[in-house]
């Protein structure tokens, strides 16, 4: 065991953790809106809209995240037309490509989580709202969405942890996130176990924090007596 290496690599890995957290928070933020949007489309009775939303979630959940990143980072740059638009400013940056890929990926999983949450809301609650003369729009925003969010908290917590692990793939498109820096240190020192313990420890610590925050939120917003 090379404890010196563990101590000297710790600050470097901690610095890289900031990149990981930035990637994670940006993709979760955009992904939540995307997921909500597609969950609402899934509940739509129009078969085309419904199938479109299902197709989106099926494709992004059925292929590895690595393929998605590679298509966006290496693939899209190949389209000549894209290079002339303002989109190119975003797409030539690996950082934004990673965020786009993560957002689309987590959006697909989030849409499934929210859809099942919407579907498990008891019809009685919506009927109660209607009989009180509340408009459909208000029922949706003030009754259905809050209940669906509460209902999906445990599953969404898992999704956050999965996404945190997913951000490690950013290292494959030259980003120096926690895994990227860990790999760099491993390949220069050939001490994989030491680096794994430190980097893995940081990831586990983040998992622990996320897990407990979700647990706290679940308790805070539980409506069962």
């Amino acid at each position, binding site marked *: 065991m090379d404890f010196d290496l563990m101590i000297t690599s710790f600050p470097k890995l901690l610095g890289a953790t900031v990149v990981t957290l930035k990637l994670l928070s940006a993709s979760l933020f955009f992904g939540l809106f995307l997921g909500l949007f597609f969950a609402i489309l899934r509940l739509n009775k129009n078969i085309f809209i419904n199938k479109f939303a299902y197709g989106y979630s099926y494709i992004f959940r059925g292929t590895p995240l690595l393929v998605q990143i590679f298509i966006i980072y290496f693939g899209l740059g190949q389209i000549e037309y894209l290079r002339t638009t303002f989109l190119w400013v975003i797409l030539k940056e690996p950082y934004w490509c990673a965020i786009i890929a993560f957002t689309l990926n987590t959006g697909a999983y989030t849409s499934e989580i929210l859809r099942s949450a919407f579907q498990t809301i008891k019809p009685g609650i919506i009927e109660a709202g209607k009989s009180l003369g509340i408009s459909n729009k208000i029922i949706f925003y003030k009754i259905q969405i809050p209940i669906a969010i509460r209902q999906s908290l445990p599953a969404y917590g898992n999704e956050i942890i999965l996404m945190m692990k997913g951000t490690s793939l950013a290292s494959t498109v030259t980003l120096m996130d926690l895994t990227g820096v860990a790999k760099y240190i491993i390949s220069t020192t050939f001490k994989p176990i030491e680096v794994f313990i430190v980097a893995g420890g940081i990831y586990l610590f983040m*998992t622990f924090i996320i897990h407990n925050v979700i647990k706290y939120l679940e308790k805070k917003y539980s409506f069962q007596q």
Partner: protein
Amino acid sequence: MELLAFGKTGWGDELFYATLMTIAVSITAMLVGFFFALIFTPLKLSKNKALNLVGNFYTTVIRGVPELLVIYLFFFGGSGAIMYVASIFGYYEYIEINAFVTGSMAIGIISGAYSTEVFRGAIQSIDKGQFEAAKVLGINKFGKFYKIILPQMLRLAIPNLSNVWQITLKDTSLISVTGLVEIMRQSYIAAGSTRDPLFFYSFAAVLYLLLTYVSMKLINKLEVRYSRGY
């Protein structure tokens, strides 16, 4: 379309073999995972606190650390570990482990952590009366597990195991970083030499979709088979 031709001019045959490689690695990893689950599920269910801790340590660490990091640990540390063990037995030559073995071991350990959780959940949701009834009838431990608990557990576990299979199948794409020529690696090579990454990565996505679709259909059949009694 000529890019996908079989033979020397296209990448069709290469991608076909790469797909077979992905399937082979996934199945091997899944089996390695079952082996680990077989060891760690009893530990997690054990009443002994120390054994329990070992079981929980395994599933928590593996499920909380990115797959890529585990793969790097095996890729860079695998042959070192084997050489260390070999040196105890007096063998000092360089040993290189094949990428297939490292890859399926790394993915297998990850898949095992998920399988362990699935088996634990399935066993815990079997009615307590079943265990007690087996005891009352004087069935020995072996018979109790294989003839009573296992068949019931499988029915409960199959839907969740199909999720584990999907995760494992998709995780194998990460082994491409170690140089094993599976779908992702082959697409990378093809994309590099033809300068057409969009086509080849999209094609890789289609191959993965096909694999997940076909395996879902097969697993659904298994599910029907194991719930015959219900």
